[in-house]
């Protein structure tokens, strides 16, 4: 028995639109993210808790110790978190502009920014 797929014309249009939008978003992110990324901003519940340079290796305790962020070789990675799902710990290290590690249960957001950009971001938010 043969199960044949029969996608219609509108299906292909839909698929094409999705792929184009995904490609554009990816392209834009890479284009904007390439330059000047040199610090990470740590936010808890939307409020900025601190800004740390990506240049120096360090270990940061966030939100009174619920999360631990490690900066090494210009990359930031969540080392520990006390949340049950551990999604943020499993996420890959971040180093490009606007890349982020997010721990939803603890409402912790770690975001890469360039220091020249941060004023602009504060306004646009």
């Amino acid at each position: 028995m043969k199960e044949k797929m029969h996608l219609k014309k509108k299906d292909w249009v839909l698929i094409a639109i999705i792929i184009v939008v995904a490609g554009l978003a990816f392209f834009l992110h890479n284009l904007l993210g390439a330059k000047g990324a040199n610090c990470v901003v740590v936010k808890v519940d939307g409020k900025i808790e601190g800004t740390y340079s990506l240049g120096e290796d360090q270990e940061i305790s966030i939100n009174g110790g619920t999360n631990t962020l490690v900066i090494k070789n210009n990359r930031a990675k969540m080392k520990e978190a006390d949340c049950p799902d551990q999604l943020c710990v499993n996420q890959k290290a971040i180093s490009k502009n606007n890349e982020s590690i997010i721990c939803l249960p603890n409402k912790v957001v770690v975001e890469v920014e360039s220091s020249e950009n941060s004023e602009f971001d504060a306004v646009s938010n």
Partner: protein
Amino acid sequence: MKSRVAYFGVFTALALIFSYVETLIPVNLGIPGVKLGLANLIIVVALYKMRLSEAYLLSVVRILLAGFIFGNYFSIIYSLAGGLLSLTVMALLKKWGGFSLQGISIAGGVFHNIGQLIVAAVVVETFSVTYYFPVLLVAGLLTGLVIGIVAEMMLKRLVNIQF
């Protein structure tokens, strides 16, 4: 007519079982949040076999039950946003016409992810989650296609059952 309630119960049970099976599959591709969405298979089938209002009810009941049993407060909010947006888009496209089952299911998968992304952006009060957008779009496309193919096979075998 009497059997509607029974069928609804069977569908709810099926959707719940699929939610459970999904928790058993260890998916860790380094891409958090990407799942097959097995339970959506039942929702897609329901969209074609039940009244729209029943499909909505099924979706909400499934998410609440699965959320209380396997998830938490967060996962219920996320699933509701994703599930309801996805079902709404699928229903609209179906009404519009000209799409195959796979096409509708693809739209469902993509908008499921978009709905969850919107909630994520609101909860953490940042727009940087949008960098995740392309990954979730492509993931929704692929899982939606798989679910659509399986749903079509299922519907073929359910031809004699009409609720």
